[in-house]
């Protein structure tokens, strides 16, 4: 598991026991996991800490899964969300698909499937981020700034996109 990059996962579900055991399993698997128990809490946490993938339950008291992942997206544009949903809620889940969720998974989730989906979501996140980064860099070169300007701009970019 060592060759795997550290994937930062934000778990959001009001079912506390589920979150507890799911985080333990994911941690053991080598993911970096932050557990939260409501959409509000997740948004608060995401304001101060960067994540790659969010796993969010659709049905929660307070702000629901769809709204939570919209808010997260505003804070961290490249963050990929996996929405967990019951069957009857597929329509809402599809709506969340329109809102750019990476995927929705039927509850109760199959653990191995979730792990695979998290990895795939991470891959997409990195690709998007790299592409955007490259695009911005190209922009800077095209603009023809001086060496100092470029360096400054690059630093800013690194900070924004979390690439060291």
């Amino acid at each position, binding site marked *: 598991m060592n060759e795997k990059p550290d994937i930062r996962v934000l778990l959001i579900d009001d*079912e506390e*026991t*589920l979150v507890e*055991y*799911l985080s*333990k*399993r994911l941690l*053991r698997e080598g993911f970096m996991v932050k557990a939260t128990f409501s959409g509000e809490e997740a948004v608060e946490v995401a304001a101060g800490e960067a994540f790659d993938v969010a796993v969010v339950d659709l049905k929660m008291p307070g702000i629901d899964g769809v709204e939570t992942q919209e808010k997260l997206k505003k804070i961290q544009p490249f963050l990929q969300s996996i929405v967990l949903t*019951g*069957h*009857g809620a*597929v*329509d809402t889940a599809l709506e969340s698909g329109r809102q750019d969720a990476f995927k929705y998974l*039927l*509850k*109760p*989730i199959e*653990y191995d499937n979730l792990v695979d989906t998290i990895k795939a979501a991470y891959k997409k996140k990195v690709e998007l981020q790299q592409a955007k980064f490259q695009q911005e860099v190209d922009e800077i070169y095209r603009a023809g700034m001086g060496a100092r300007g470029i360096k400054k701009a690059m630093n800013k970019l690194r900070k924004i996109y979390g690439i060291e």
Partner: protein
Amino acid sequence: MESNDVPNSRSETTSEVIARLERECSRARRHLATVLENSSDMVFATDADGILVSFNRGGERAIGYSSEQVMGRPARDLAADPSEFERLEALSRTEGRATHQEYPFRHKDGHIVRFDLSLIAITDSDGRFAGTSSVCRDTAPMKKFHDDLIRVDRLAEIGRTASGIAHEINNPVAVIGEISGWIEAVVGDAKGMAREDREELETAVQHIVKQVKRCRGITRQLLAYARDSEPAQTSLDVHELLRETVSFLNPELRHKDIEAVFDFMEGSLLLQSDKQMLEQIFVNLISNAIHAVKEKGEAGGRVVLKTSRDGSTVQIRVSDNGTGISEENQKRMYDLFFTTKPAGKGTGLGLPICRDIIGKLGGEFSFETQVGEGTTFIVRLPTG
């Protein structure tokens, strides 16, 4: 009116008048007789002594006697309770009419048939009682309709309740699944544990995981049943889908030593329909066929998939040479949770789901079965 019946300007002779009136009279009688004969109600009349003087074909169909067999006999003999019929006759005599809901008559075969009975007194031109006329409407179709309504309503209610419960149970089941996964991990990592203890724990956890999967299967099927979404409309080849389904179920077929036979019409069988829904129908029907063959426990088990096309209708027949379905089970086969499979093997949702889906797809679902010989389920679907 025909022209020869119209009195012309020349004055008629008395015999001509009589002849004309007779013709009119007989025509009216024929007309009435035709109406009576073709009525699906049982209609009969008696003379003043209660003896049958007419009995229509509706009556013949309803209680099995031909008009020849009952004419000249007392009408009360047709009733399950003759003295009660006499009371109604007497009542109609004094009141002009008598009615009785769900009145029991006795069929030629001996069983009871119930009718909404309306008895009317007939009087002659002098106002004297001349007999009765009875109109009897079979209440069975109405009653069946009523029962069906109640049944459908009850099914819908069960469906709603069950899907609500399935939703609620989903979460705890998910938690159990995660905890067992965690136990598995902890046991896997544990050091200094005796081998047999470790194996014991691993097996136990695997059993929990299996049961969690089983719960998940049930809740998913239930929720799919209760789901009200519109079917998708994609272009698909039924033959391809059937082949895919059989290959999906192939391990099962091979394990039970059952031969799958494709008896397809030539070429592909294209359809505009919902692939997932059709897949579910095929999986359910073929699984049932496999089970029926296995139950019978004889060698040479076969499941035949036959397709044909008739105009704008596609027909898919799934036949097996298994146990067949007893009459008793036929009555219950669409009841939710009714299953003949052993505990843990069937959910009792397969056939109700098939029927539900086929209805949504605008098709028809039927079956032919013979105990000990096998069963064929027939799915008819519109092509477009």
